[in-house]
Structures are given as structure tokens and as C-alpha cells.
């Protein structure tokens, strides 16, 4: 994905890329208050942030975050008959989430100031 691709493609595709870029932070944030399993994380992202991303992206990303030491996982028996894989933040994951949060805030703040003139238009 190059800059040329971003410019050339439709706004929808750009939005998808944008959502993808925030996904790591969104997942870490969703796990802040407690552990969740995959589908719960997906539903939380959908509900709280309208962040609909394909499941085919989320599960490998969860695996990746666990390999990086930001998450732990455990299998828990459920009353539905099959076990579920719950994820939780590690201390490293919490630190990373805070880091990303501050980068995000700085970024949106500076972007907002750039976008101020556009706010005149309706």
C-alpha cells in the first residue's frame, strides 16, 4: 500500500485502511476493563465505535498481539458446549495501549487544527 494507492483509490478504501490502522489500539482498549473472547471483542468494537472490521483480520491480529507479549490467552469452558479463548492485557499490553493512546491524541489534535478551515463548510 503506497501513497499513490491511497490517493488513487476511492474514499471507502481509504476508510478501510484508516480503520485497519487503528485496530491494534481499539483491541487493546476494548480489553482494558477485563478479559473478552474473540467474538465479544468484535461486538464491542462494532457497538462502541462502529469499527466494523472483518473477522479474518481480527483473529490473526489477536494472535500477533499475543506473540508480541501484549496479550495473554486462556481457554474457558462455556455453557454453550465448546470452550472459548479469552484474551487479557499483560502489563506490557497496558503500557503499549497508553503509549498508543497518547500518540493518537497528539495526532488527532494536530489533524484537527489542520482541518479547522474545512469546518466552515457544511
Amino acid at each position: 500500500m503506497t501513497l499513490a494507492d491511497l490517493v488513487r483509490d476511492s474514499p471507502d478504501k481509504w476508510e478501510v485502511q484508516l480503520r485497519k490502522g487503528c485496530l491494534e489500539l481499539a483491541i487493546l482498549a476494548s480489553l482494558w476493563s477485563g478479559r473478552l473472547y474473540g467474538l465479544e471483542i468484535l461486538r464491542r468494537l462494532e457497538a462502541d465505535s462502529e469499527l466494523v472490521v472483518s473477522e479474518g483480520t481480527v483473529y490473526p491480529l489477536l494472535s500477533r498481539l499475543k506473540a508480541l507479549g501484549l496479550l495473554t490467552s486462556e481457554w474457558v469452558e462455556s455453557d454453550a458446549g465448546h470452550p472459548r479463548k479469552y484474551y487479557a492485557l499483560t502489563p506490557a499490553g497496558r503500557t503499549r495501549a497508553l503509549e498508543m493512546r497518547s500518540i493518537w491524541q497528539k495526532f488527532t489534535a494536530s489533524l484537527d487544527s489542520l482541518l479547522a478551515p474545512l469546518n466552515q463548510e457544511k
Partner: protein
Amino acid sequence: MTLSETSQRTLDAYLATLHKRLRGMPDDDIREIVEEIRSHVMDKASASGIITDAGVTSALSALGSPEELAGQYMTDDLLARAQATGSFWLILRSLFRWASISVAGFFVLIGSLICYCLGFFLAWAAILKPLHPQRAGLWMIPRPGGDVEMSLHLGFASPPATGHEVLGWWIIPIGILGIGLFFATLRVDQWSLGKFRRSLSLGGRS
């Protein structure tokens, strides 16, 4: 909760393909991934406690094809293991994977292969020089038509009829530097694969 026969078969077929495509990863990891996906489909496909066939189909299509899904898992696992072990074979596989994903990866692969081959063959010519003093080394062979062919001989065949060997015993220190080139390329590849891996978790294609 139970699935109908057709749904069971569809799900099993999907997971079997997924399992097959994940080969190369550690067995425990493959088992966990397959179980997690199975668990996900069962949960997603059930509305008010009953699993419907339509639910299973739509859950599977939302996941994407098993090949693509496996691809996403494989790339990161390969890169992680290549980085952790620094193994030449894993790094090479990672480079090939990167090359199949982006143009930058393709150029890194080509450049790396050239450096690895050069370093490797220079080292071998140097090692074999004491055994084949007249034949191992860098040969300049004039070709009909005015060209000069430059080739690195390890010394096993008889020496070329025309042309002469240019480096003499200097091939030995150069071969040592060739070993250095090989390992330097390995380090550079490890570093750039690390950067590539980080770029993936920020949402790039994999």
C-alpha cells in the same frame, strides 16, 4: 448445540483446509487456531441458542477464505520465528513471502540473494584454493568476438584452456570478507524483516 449434517461437513471442510494451509507453524499453535475459529463460528452462527445453517454459511464467508486466513497467520509467525532465531532458512522463507506481498520485498530478496551467493562462492573459492592452487579463483577468459568472461572457479574441473586467473592467493582474504558479506546480509535482512513485521501490525496487507 448441534449442527445439521451439511453444516457440520461445511465447517469441517473449512477447518481442514485451514489446518492444511497452516502447516509449517508449531502443531500446538495450529490446533489452537483451528479450535478458536470453530468456537467463533459456533457462537456467531447461533441466534438464541440454536445454530442455523444460514448462520454457519454467513459466519464462514465473513471470515474469508481459509487460504487467506491461514496466510495472515503464517506471515506473522514466519517473521517472528525468523527474527527470534536468526536462522538463515527462516529468513530466506520470510524474504520470499515478503517478495510475494510487496515490490520492496522483491528488491530486498533479489539484492539479498546476490549478496548471499557472492559471499558464499567467494568463501568457497578461498577454501578450495589451497587444494586446487592452479584452478580455483577468479578467471578472466577471452571469448571469441572480443568479450572477456569473468567467472569464479572452485577448482574441480580442469583449468580453462585460455585466460588466466586474476587474484592468485589474494582470493583468501577476499573469501574471508565474503564470509563477512554473507553474515552482514543476514543481519540487514533480519533488521528489514523486523521493520516489515511492524508495518504489518499497523494494518498493512499480509
